[in-house]
């Protein structure tokens, strides 16, 4: 096995694939991968660990007496509530541990899966795609070494998280959060991570491109989540048993502490990984199992206009965010009918809702959800508005700007997509929220109301685009600072409501000036002013870009 790599120089020349030779160099590659990821991995692991720990700790005050916990349990006991959390069996126990497992595992398992998928694709397919793997493989490195090293790194990261969680949660000393439960809780995460790492080991064999490989693996995670959501919300949980996320949730940490569902994950992981190794021998380095589809040999007329071209580059993220926000809106909408029951008894949120005002809990809750939806939309807007910058640094702006395309029209195409696309995804979020909300409350009027409420945020998105363009035009190297806008908007607009930040903090965010529909009344003045600000920022940014040097490679 890997010990064969201790003295790679002394090994006999390559024997057939089957021997230990196929893994030669794995240990070095693992160390190399850990070195490359020395910042990335700790950030992922600590973020997952700390957010779990903070959530668990917040239960102390959130559900201080048993009455609150019983309320919390009751509030999720609906198909929608269960779809967003986990299997109903957790509700038989109202301890802190059970609450934590129920509310968190489904969600964090997705994130651990994401981390593991990204680790595997980054150290296998991305290496091949850039051609670095070829260089490495020409040395004394076995044909399975890259994949083995990537899986090992993913497993190490997953195990580190598992141990941290087990130790950290036990150390919290929360009633009902004991050591044996915490151990299962931690390893439930590791199990989920391993399964999806192994899934990625298969998907990287099929396509020659990193994005395709991680995209396919993420689709598997999404499907797994959807299956368990469907299974948990229904009467039969057969569907949940088809999903690795369903399995880890069924280890019932702090409730039953079952290990065998995790073993199921391990078996599945081993099976997938074996398939991955097997498939990798049936393709060439750098190639995928699926042959490359030829594309169009000529460009359509629409592609050669600035906006059409920008739209082509943006269509993936635009479609993704559009669909994602529509579904996210629908998800919140589906629980709108239960909102009153769900939120009853959670003091902080009730108080926050009261401050927002509004005729009913439904309206106040809808206004609060709107903030979350617009923050996600602003994430899209920032990625779209920063696209010209990434095109520039990748060296792809240069040949275009050497044609008859002016700088303003080039950036203009991207901005048109950012502004229009941002407005579109916002409308879709509102529409999804409205449609599902109307279905769950029986109030058809919510469809236009909530779509309109979402669209009221559009001027704030345009200002966000404006901020990004000003940075791009005048301080290109600091373009990424535009991310501060959505982050600030989220912290102040969402957490600030609950934690009662002073008013002026809200006024600094463009989103803070939008009337909080549907709870508040519509006011047109702030929208008009924000639109003017956006226009001014766009003009300023374009002026800056016309005057500066283009950055080239």
């Amino acid at each position: 096995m890997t010990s064969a790599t201790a003295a790679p120089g002394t090994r006999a020349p390559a024997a057939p694939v089957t021997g230990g030779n196929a893994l030669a160099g794995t240990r070095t590659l693992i160390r190399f991968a850990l070195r490359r990821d020395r910042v990335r991995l700790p950030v992922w692991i600590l973020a997952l660990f700390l957010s779990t720990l903070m959530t668990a700790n917040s239960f102390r005050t959130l559900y201080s007496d048993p009455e609150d916990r019983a309320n919390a349990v009751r509030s999720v006991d609906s198909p929608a509530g269960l779809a967003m959390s986990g299997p109903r069996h957790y509700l038989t126990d109202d301890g802190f541990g059970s609450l934590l497992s129920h509310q968190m595992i489904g969600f964090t398992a997705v994130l651990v899966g994401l981390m593991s998928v990204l680790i595997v694709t980054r150290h296998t397919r991305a290496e091949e795609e850039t051609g670095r793997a070829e260089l490495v493989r020409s040395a004394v490195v076995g044909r399975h070494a890259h994949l083995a090293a990537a899986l090992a790194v993913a497993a190490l990261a997953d195990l580190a998280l598992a141990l941290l969680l087990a130790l950290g949660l036990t150390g919290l000393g929360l009633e009902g959060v004991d050591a044996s439960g915490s151990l299962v809780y931690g390893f439930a995460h590791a199990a989920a991570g391993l399964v999806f790492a192994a899934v990625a080991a298969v998907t990287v064999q099929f396509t020659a491109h990193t994005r395709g490989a991680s995209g396919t693996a993420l689709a598997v995670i999404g499907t797994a989540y959807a299956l368990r959501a469907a299974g948990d919300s229904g009467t039969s949980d057969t569907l949940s048993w088809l999903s690795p996320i369903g399995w880890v949730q069924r280890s019932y940490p702090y409730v039953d502490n079952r290990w065998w569902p995790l073993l199921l994950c391990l078996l599945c992981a081993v099976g997938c990984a074996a398939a991955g190794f097997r498939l990798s021998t049936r393709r060439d380095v750098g190639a995928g199992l699926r042959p490359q589809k030829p594309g169009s040999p000529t460009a359509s007329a629409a592609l050669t206009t600035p906006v059409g071209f920008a739209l082509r580059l943006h269509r993936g993220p635009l479609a993704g965010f559009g669909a994602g926000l529509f579904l996210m809106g629908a998800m919140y909408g589906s629980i709108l009918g239960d909102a009153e029951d769900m939120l009853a008894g959670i003091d902080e949120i009730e108080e926050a809702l009261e401050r927002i005002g509004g005729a009913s809990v439904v309206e106040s809750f809808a206004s609060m959800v709107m903030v979350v939806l617009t923050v996600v939309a602003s994430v899209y807007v920032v990625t779209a508005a920063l696209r010209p910058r990434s095109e520039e640094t990748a060296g792809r702006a240069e040949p275009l700007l050497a044609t008859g395309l002016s700088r303003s029209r080039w950036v203009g195409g991207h901005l048109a997509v950012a502004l229009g696309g941002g407005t579109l995804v916002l409308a879709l979020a509102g529409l999804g929220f409205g449609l599902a909300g109307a279905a769950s409350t029986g109030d058809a009027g919510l469809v236009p109301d909530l779509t309109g409420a979402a669209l009221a945020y559009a001027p704030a998105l345009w200002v966000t685009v404006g901020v990004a363009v000003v940075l791009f035009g005048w301080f290109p190297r600091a373009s990424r600072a535009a991310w501060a806008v959505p982050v600030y908007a989220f912290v102040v607009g969402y957490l600030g409501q609950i934690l009662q930040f002073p008013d002026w903090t809200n006024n600094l965010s463009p989103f803070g000036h939008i009337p909080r529909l549907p709870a508040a009344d519509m006011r047109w003045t702030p929208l008009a002013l924000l639109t003017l600000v956006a226009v001014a920022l766009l003009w300023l940014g374009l002026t800056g870009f016309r005057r500066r040097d283009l950055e080239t490679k």
Partner: protein
Amino acid sequence: MTKAISVSGLRKTFGRTRALDGLDLSVGTGEVHGFLGPNGAGKSTTIRVLLGLLRADSGTAEVLGQDPWRDAVALHRRIAYVPGDVELWPGLTGGEAIDLLARLRGGLDERRRTELVERFDLDPTKKGRAYSKGNRQKVAIVAALASDAELLLLDEPTAGLDPLMEVVFQDVIAEAKAAGRTVLLSSHILAQVEKLADRVSIVRQGRTVQSGTLGELRHLTRTTVEAETERPATDLARLPGVHDLRTVDEATGRIRFTVDGPQVGTAVRALTDLGVRSLVSHPPTLEELMLRHYGDELAANGHGAGADGHTTAPGTDGEPR
């Protein structure tokens, strides 16, 4: 002859790096102009200033009678550009990229596009991410040549092409020249410029160090002479203008030396007096010109610069005198 490009005293700094340090360049309409220099000499920076992608700190630049910064867009309709490092959009096919670039420049000649795609043996249905460096370059070359540009700015356009494709490239550039287009061809591959260029400018550390026709430049430099004589010719070293005299073969008495242009006659007369049996001379290759200009960078190699340069290009223009 009218000027397609005239640049004088161009300066450009990036932070502390001085990329251009008073560069001059003059390219006549209809000529193929070689723009030579080692990596980092400022060739790409100059071309980007000519395209209005960078703004010069000082100095003047005029392209086709217009200001490249102010009139960038109007100018770009008359210019085609092939960057040295072509980056394509990973999701767009090569064919789409060609159409995009050429149409944004103001339209393309479909017949010529088809012909060029065939000649360069390019598969236009592949996605940008699947192309090798050479194929990405072909995409940019086809896009540049398929439209009717008056001026071609080519920045090391063949760095990734194989020798067969380089021949196709030379043919295509020769055709462009015959069609009356002006070409600025930057390169550090000397043989290529030698075959195509009417005039060359040699730049170094952001400055033009030499400019002229190949003939003029050669006049300024030394001719290499190899000769066998009946009597020993080692005394030749004392003649003015003769350098680097070495005996190549003791047995036959074959010697080799370089001689400054104006002194060629004296040297040949001296050889005749010594009973010359064979005589080969050739004009300096661009390799030698470059080595002369960058010789100080090669100081570590001793004085070998001029003497060994021509051995890499045997028989180029060999002509007995």
